[in-house]
């Protein structure tokens, strides 16, 4: 994977607005953002209503995903271009999720919704409708998803990257600061995890930094190329952003996203937790 195979620019998207084999999909934390205006032709996926199981604490099954993508008019051969607010956090989450179920042609719009808006490019409230398809998902690719037992076993052995803000990592904040701070989980981080905030991988306008800058970022943070890597955040969407950088832009081999992330880990009984700005010991 590389920048060229994983990212498209806003100009590229404008040139492909009428290309029926390219499906623009907006995914936002604010699930009403699409309704207030979106890129012409884009359809909406609701990261909560569409992509979460709704009963189990998990995302939707393969069957439900197939039904969802079929109804949305996404075909197996289509190029799916995700974009969204929050610097593409939830778009990267949806990208990772479709990758998990084996979709081949996936891209992120570099800079997402923010760059599009800051460039004053066209937005519309006209809702797009695509003819239904018969989507067939592949079996889940567990090589890109980490669960809690693997994470606990990785303490002190694999690269653990906590991509939350320094104040969340240290335990001074319990959630990103656009959300209320009352949370069920305790504060802190997984011992031995380094803190490389997702935001260091992005420019102010939401576009990704250059390959050289990204390589230097993770090298300086002590990421050991010889080891497998697991990224986590609070609910798995910011870590999807970092998973995207490491796996899809820089081409690292063994990178997993721990989507249970701190809401799960910080609520577990009797697991080790580190507080403060240092990684802590195994």
């Amino acid at each position, binding site marked *: 994977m590389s920048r060229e195979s994983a990212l498209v620019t806003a100009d590229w998207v404008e040139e492909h607005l009428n290309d029926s084999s390219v499906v623009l999909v907006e995914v936002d934390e*604010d699930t009403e*953002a699409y309704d*207030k205006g979106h890129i012409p032709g884009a359809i909406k996926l609701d990261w909560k209503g569409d992509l979460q199981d709704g009963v189990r604490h998990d995302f939707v099954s393969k069957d439900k995903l197939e039904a969802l993508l079929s109804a949305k008019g996404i075909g197996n051969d289509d190029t799916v271009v995700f974009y969204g*607010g*929050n*610097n593409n956090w939830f778009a990267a989450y949806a990208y990772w999720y479709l990758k998990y179920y084996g979709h081949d042609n996936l891209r992120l719009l570099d800079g997402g919704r*923010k760059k599009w*808006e*800051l*460039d*004053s490019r066209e937005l519309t409230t006209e809702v797009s409708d695509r003819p239904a398809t018969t989507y067939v998902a592949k079996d889940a690719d567990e090589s890109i998803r980490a669960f809690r037992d693997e994470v606990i076993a990785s303490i002190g052995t694999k690269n653990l990257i906590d991509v939350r*803000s*320094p*104040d969340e990592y240290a335990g*001074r*904040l319990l*959630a*990103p*600061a*656009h*959300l*209320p*701070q*009352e949370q069920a989980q305790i504060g802190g981080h997984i011992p031995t995890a380094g803190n490389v*905030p997702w*935001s*260091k991988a992005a420019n*102010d*306008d939401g576009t990704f930094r250059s390959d050289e800058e990204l390589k230097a970022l993770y090298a300086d943070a002590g990421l050991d190329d010889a080891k497998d890597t697991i990224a986590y955040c609070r609910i798995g969407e910011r870590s999807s952003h970092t998973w995207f950088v490491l796996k899809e832009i820089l081409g690292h081999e063994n990178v997993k996203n721990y989507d249970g992330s701190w809401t799960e880990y910080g609520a577990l009984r009797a697991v080790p937790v580190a507080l403060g700005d240092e990684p802590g010991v195994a």
Partner: protein
Amino acid sequence: MCGAIKGGPSLEGVDVANEAVIQGIVTRDGQPVGNAYVRLLDRTGEFTAEVPTSATGQFRFFAGPGEWTLRTLAPKSISVDNAVTAAKGVVAEVAVAV
């Protein structure tokens, strides 16, 4: 959109006593800017959160006690920084002009 609104969004339903709220409004020439992005930087300048402004130009963060910087990006403007101090139980109001 008239320019009569002062300050950040309504605090109805917000647990102000237990939060260190930073909020306000982004304006250009006295008019609210509804398509700006406000980011919250910590005391070291590191990104902590970002929100788009509402249609009325308003924004809100739930920070921790301490010194913070708001960095506002709006179309056709250079970014603007505003320093702000947050404290639990206090609502810090910031007027941002771009």
